[in-house]
């Protein structure tokens, strides 16, 4: 094993896959000469040259469309968005084109493409630069949506995403790129669509994914001090969702709190709660609770950020309420 940053894990995944397969390339703003706005692609231009590590103008709709077209015609592009907020300009090509191509063409054309970049809030960046897109993309059939929470998962999942023959939305975080974690020396893959029970427990299950997994771990540690044993599940992908792992856990704990960074309405937490009341109704001893961002656009001021974001206290409260403990 070796310790790497999240950004290095992503870089290793891309680099290894590009060495293996000439049809894989990386495209995006500042990915080449600037070595990536967040240094994920550092050194990749040096290794692969400008044919395969390509700086684009600030033209999200255009370069995403070009990448989607290239993926229909034999290439396997990785498109880096400086952040997913800017990919809204490219949502047409992701949602209208890539997600639908295989079906519309009756199976003739598919889009083996990865869209990746920073997702979610990253400090005081204001409303347009702080959005979490998990549920928005999870809503769209035809896409797969991956939400890694640590360097190990990030590398294994990104390699799978690059090899996947369907379009994959890969949601990272500017706030995670510096996170360190252990990964094996050699190659490994993690299949998309398999949740990971990150911490075993018996009293309550916290289901989460992505950056806020840290909040889940912290809350679980605090609750342990109070004698509450929490099972923590990392979904790792939100399309598909590994419902089985979640239901199996609820059969054991009978209580569930869903934690996510995004807004509450039409969210992953609504989906999990629906699924549990439908398929684990008899196993639930309390209503499914959730902790999300407030139902408001993200704002700049630190006090408003504190109010808006899920935090350890709110998760602990939600967990306790499923145990009917105040």
């Amino acid at each position: 094993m070796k310790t790497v940053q999240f950004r290095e894990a992503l870089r290793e995944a891309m680099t290894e896959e590009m060495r293996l397969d000439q049809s894989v390339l990386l495209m995006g703003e500042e990915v080449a000469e600037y070595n990536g706005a967040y240094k994920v692609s550092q050194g990749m231009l040096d290794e692969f040259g400008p044919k395969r590590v390509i700086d684009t103008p600030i033209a999200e709709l255009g370069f995403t469309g070009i990448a989607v077209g290239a993926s229909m015609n034999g290439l396997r592009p990785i498109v880096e968005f400086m952040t997913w907020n800017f990919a809204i300009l490219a949502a047409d090509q992701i949602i209208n084109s890539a997600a639908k191509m295989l079906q519309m063409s009756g199976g003739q054309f598919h889009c083996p493409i990865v869209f990746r970049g920073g997702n979610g809030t990253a400090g005081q960046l204001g409303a347009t630069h702080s959005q979490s897109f998990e549920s928005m993309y999870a809503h769209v059939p035809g896409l797969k949506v991956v939400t890694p929470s640590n360097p190990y998962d990030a590398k294994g999942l990104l390699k799978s995403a690059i090899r996947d023959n369907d379009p994959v939305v890969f949601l990272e975080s500017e706030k995670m790129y510096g996170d360190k974690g252990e990964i094996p020396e050699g190659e490994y893959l993690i299949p998309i669509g398999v949740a990971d029970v990150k911490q075993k427990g018996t009293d309550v299950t916290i289901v989460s994914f992505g950056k806020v997994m840290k909040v889940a771990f912290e809350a679980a540690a605090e609750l342990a001090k109070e004698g509450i044993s929490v099972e923590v599940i990392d979904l790792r992908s939100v399309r598909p969702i590994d419902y089985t792992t979640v239901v199996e856990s609820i059969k054991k704990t009978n209580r569930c709190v869903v934690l996510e960074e995004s807004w509450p309405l039409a969210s992953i937490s609504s989906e999990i709660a629906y699924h549990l009341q439908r398929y684990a109704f008899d196993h639930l001893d309390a209503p499914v609770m959730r902790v999300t961002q407030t139902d408001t656009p993200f704002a700049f001021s630190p006090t408003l950020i504190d109010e808006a974001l899920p935090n350890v206290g709110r998760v602990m409260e939600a967990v306790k309420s499923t145990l009917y403990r105040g």
Partner: protein
Amino acid sequence: MAVSTKKKPAKTTRKSTSMKSSKFSKETYIKWYKDMLLIRKFEEKTGQLYIQQKFGGFCHLYIGQEAIVAGTASACIKGDKHMTAYRDHGHPLALGTDPRVLMAELYGRSTGCSKGKGGSMHFFDKEVGFMGGHGIVGAQIAMGAGVGFAEKYNETGNVVCVSMGDGAVRQGALHETFNMAMMWKLPVIFIIENNNYAMGTSVERTTNVVDLSKIGHSYEMPSKSVNGMSPEAVHEAIAEAADRARKGDGPTLLDIKTYRYKGHSMSDPQKYRTKSEVAEWVEQDPITHCSKVIKENKWLSEKEFEAISDWVKNEVKESIEFAENSPYPEGKELYEDVYMDKEYPFIVEY
């Protein structure tokens, strides 16, 4: 890192015949000088405060580009509207916004121009016609045309100045907008604040057509390049474009060549350019230029210069005091200003 074949940005040279026989009045020069100095000092201080972590977020300084907003402000009239991207500290200052509310916004305080909700990238001041402050590259191009659409619809005679970076012109929406703006003869001045870089990417690396004024040609939009280090040149170009717009003859594209002396934001190592390139541009500094003209014409005494400089220092100092003594918004203010509908039923779980 890989080193690109860096071409130098085309240098703009000021016609420096006699500065004394200027077309512009003493008052105009003094106003430019004051406006630009205020922006410069406000921004220098902002940079320092950011490094001291007095506030967070992104911080894009306007240092070097002051002549654009100074010349634009002097050429426009009350009622005209202004819009730009996230590099937005200079515009409201030139239009007359109190620096106190801008500093308070940087600090995220409820007394800020956007109540601490927008931050550095989202300054707004309706009072002076400043309609933002937009963080998504290129968003304001179409919106600005829409603001012009409304002015035309209401037959106000006002014009709209929409600024964008040289990087922003690569957004596809620009082309859709230019076409409609020309077809509908919208009273808009599209201003490219061409500092030759979009983060680390020079204009040459994003296009075969490095003369950005040509972008307007396929729409037969009147277009030209302007020396952005000269408030005189900017004023003249804006005045001419505004005149055309007010007469109902539609939009203009101005490729205003300027330079940002500092990095893209506060975390930019600036490996994409040389120190000597920066120095060449600093030599053409518009504030130095204005002070020279004023001195040569003996429009201000040493004492009066000092008084201006003291006034600027004091404005900046008081802005900081105002900001630091202002409260942060309360958590519940998150639910204000989201909908005009005051009864909107938010999901509230905490």
